[in-house]
């Protein structure tokens, strides 16, 4: 019975993130548009775009290799699995036992590796520029998030997200400086990883300034739809991650009743909305930074994460 329940819970959350991801992107776009005094596209526009792309033919460059065609599926699979490892409204995910936070980072890292390869596959200048910038960002963002994970894991005593979330929701956690630092570090990394302003601009049409968009410039049709959906999943993943580690209130436990689960789901939507709104607000109020400022920005995340870990060593209560 519990096995069935676990499978259902896991399945429901996997489906939920898939269905919810375009909505979050649509919501952020909508809020940004309203902040700019524009009406903005409807909330469901990302779904429509995905359907439209799915129906379109794929246009492939003559010299595209098999890798170029396979990579969208790899990226999507990796990101979806990673996203389904993050508790949304309920803890105690079935997959938690097999994959922890480090596995999530590894999954995302592989997805990125393949994406960078795809950027260079066709051999256009923009793809190469995009890949080189992406890898530069990754070399700084990945250590930062790993160390953030260590800091959080040392406090919670586990790298398994369900356990971490449960610990964070309990009274044992208290007010800790190191957690604050880890939070800021994770936020910076999340901005960089999701190609948001000030690191990249998800809405740009300037081919010379793009990072993420430059890598996927040659994709079309269902390939592009999968890549877009992966990006949307990744954004949802990071927002959920921040929510479940730093705003764990209301997340239902593994053996919760349906009512608590429903309450947890409602609260989860609320958290997404708040974080999505804050993201839109932040993006509206700041310009994109020069490419070579990005290392300083991510370096700050790395230092904060390192400090958080060190503080934890110095004193168990910080």
């Amino acid at each position, binding site marked *: 019975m519990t096995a069935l329940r676990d499978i259902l819970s896991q399945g429901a959350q996997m489906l939920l993130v898939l269905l919810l991801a375009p909505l979050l992107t649509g919501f952020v776009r909508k809020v*940004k548009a309203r*902040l*700019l*005094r*524009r009406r903005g596209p409807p909330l469901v526009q990302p779904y429509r775009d995905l359907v439209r792309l799915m129906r379109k033919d794929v246009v492939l460059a003559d010299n595209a290799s098999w890798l170029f065609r396979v990579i969208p599926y790899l990226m999507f699979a990796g990101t979806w699995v990673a996203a389904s490892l993050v508790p949304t409204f309920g803890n105690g995910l079935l997959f938690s036992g097999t994959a922890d936070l480090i596995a999530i980072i590894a999954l995302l890292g592989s997805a990125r590796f393949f994406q960078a390869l795809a950027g260079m596959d066709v051999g256009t*200048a*923009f793809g190469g*520029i995009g890949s*080189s910038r992406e890898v530069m960002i990754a070399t700084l963002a990945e250590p930062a998030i790993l160390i953030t994970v260590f800091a959080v894991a040392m406090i919670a005593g586990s790298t398994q997200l369900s356990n971490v979330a449960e610990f964070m929701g309990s009274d044992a956690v208290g007010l800790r400086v190191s957690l604050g630092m880890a939070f800021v570090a994770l936020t910076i990394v999340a901005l960089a990883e999701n190609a948001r*302003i*000030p690191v990249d*601009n998800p*809405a*740009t*049409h*300037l*081919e*010379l*300034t793009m990072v993420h968009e430059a890598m996927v*410039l040659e994709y079309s049709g269902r390939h592009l739809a999968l890549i877009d959906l992966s990006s949307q999943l990744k954004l949802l993943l990071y927002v959920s991650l921040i929510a479940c580690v730093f705003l764990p209130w209301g997340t239902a436990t593994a053996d919760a009743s349906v009512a608590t689960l429903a309450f947890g789901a409602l609260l989860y939507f609320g958290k997404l909305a708040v974080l999505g709104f804050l993201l839109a607000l932040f993006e*509206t*109020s*700041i*310009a*994109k*930074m*020069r*490419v*070579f*400022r990005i290392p300083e920005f991510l370096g700050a995340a790395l230092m904060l994460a390192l400090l958080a870990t060190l503080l934890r060593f110095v004193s168990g209560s910080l």
Partner: protein
Amino acid sequence: MGILDSIPHVHAVPSHRPWPRVVVAEAGWRAAVDELAAGRLTLLGLWGEPAVVHMALLDEAVAEIAVVTYECAAGSFPSVARHHPPALRLERTIHDLFGLTSTSADDVRPWLDHYVWDKSFPLGSRDAPREAVLYRFLPAEGEALHQVAVGPVHAGIIEPGHFRFTANGEHVVRLEQWLGYTHKGVESLLQGANLEAAAKLANRTSGDSAVAYAFAFARAAEAALDIEAPPHATHLRALMAELERLANHFGDIGAICNDASFALMHAQTGILRERCLRAADAAFGHRLMMDVIVPGGVVRDIAPDGIAALRTLLAEIDKVFPRLIELYDNTASLQDRTVTTGIVKTEYARQFGAGGYVGRASGRNFDARRMLAYAPYDRLSFEVPVLEAGDVNARVWIRIREVEQSVALIAQILDLMAPGEIMSALPAGHGECEGLAVTEAFRGDVLVWLRLDRELRVQRCHLRDASWFQWPLLETAIEGNIIADFPLCNKSFNCSYSGADL
């Protein structure tokens, strides 16, 4: 005739107004080129006719202009570009259009001709077929250098142009532009057109500068015919010119910030730009105010409720714009992008005679409205802002200051304006005559030169956009910057493709 003292000339052309045109032999031509190369004169324009080339020169010290004409007996003329690089693209254009070659030129690649025209040398008398040669970009050699080809089709909706970057990673070593994709043969179409049709064509050379072009064309035709537009008409012309400047500067300030992904400014200035266009529509019946200015005056007076619409516009700008300036100045992340990015050196701005905000942000104090004070600016008071820094930030600030000046100018004109005649009658017939005019468009000085025949038809007309002398400076501004900063630099120049490709 101070400007012509040092240039030995054969004879002066009597029917050229308001500035003199002289025919020179090779010695005179070379003397003029030497003056340019020495920096004593500024090149205003270089254009051709089937058998002659004309060069417009400006002496900034005394605000005098002269045109020197060289008769190409053997289908060639001594190269100007060899000693004065700003003439390079103009010379290549003369070759493409007229088949006149410049002797001893270093660069003989075509400029406008991409080998897709029906005819080679469309304006010239020579009808030799041209052989298509692969366009070779200038080399940049070194280990780890690679090329990035951008355009002519871009990811956003902008005009077409090709940019070839040679870069070392992100660092740009060389940028070379290749334009000509929007060539539409304006000068061919102008030949033989009557004044009305020609004014329409001139109006459409570059859509964002419709008023400035119509203004310049009308002034050139009036100069040739030796008539003047009535005072009320000149007031209306200046109103339109300033409205056009306002709308474009608002658009540019927002677009520059948008290229740094600061969309907030873009949205706010977009509203102001739209208000300008609507006020223009209310006052002059067309958002871009096309086909209002014609030789002799303007075709219609300002609409009865136009003055009120303009006053409302000024009130709104006064209310909103200071807050936007503050937003620009106080957003550190934005300043970080614009300050010290894309610096145009002062000496280049001077050498190239760069007009508009490009020149004025790099210390070149030239504004046709002030230096060549044409009606009605000779009777209006305004300041010409000049900065020395030469970076993107300076070009933004010049625009901000010019917006303030334009607002003040519109208010002044509205106060001064008194109803009156709006058209001077054109003479029914006239001897062959030539006119030259320079007006200040939002991006710099527009030069129009024309020759009318006895039936007042255009025999030959040349339109020179300010962008001719700004595009090459963009190539120098990006050197040493990173590729990702190019869109920002480019937008801060906002050169015209259409105006320069003709």
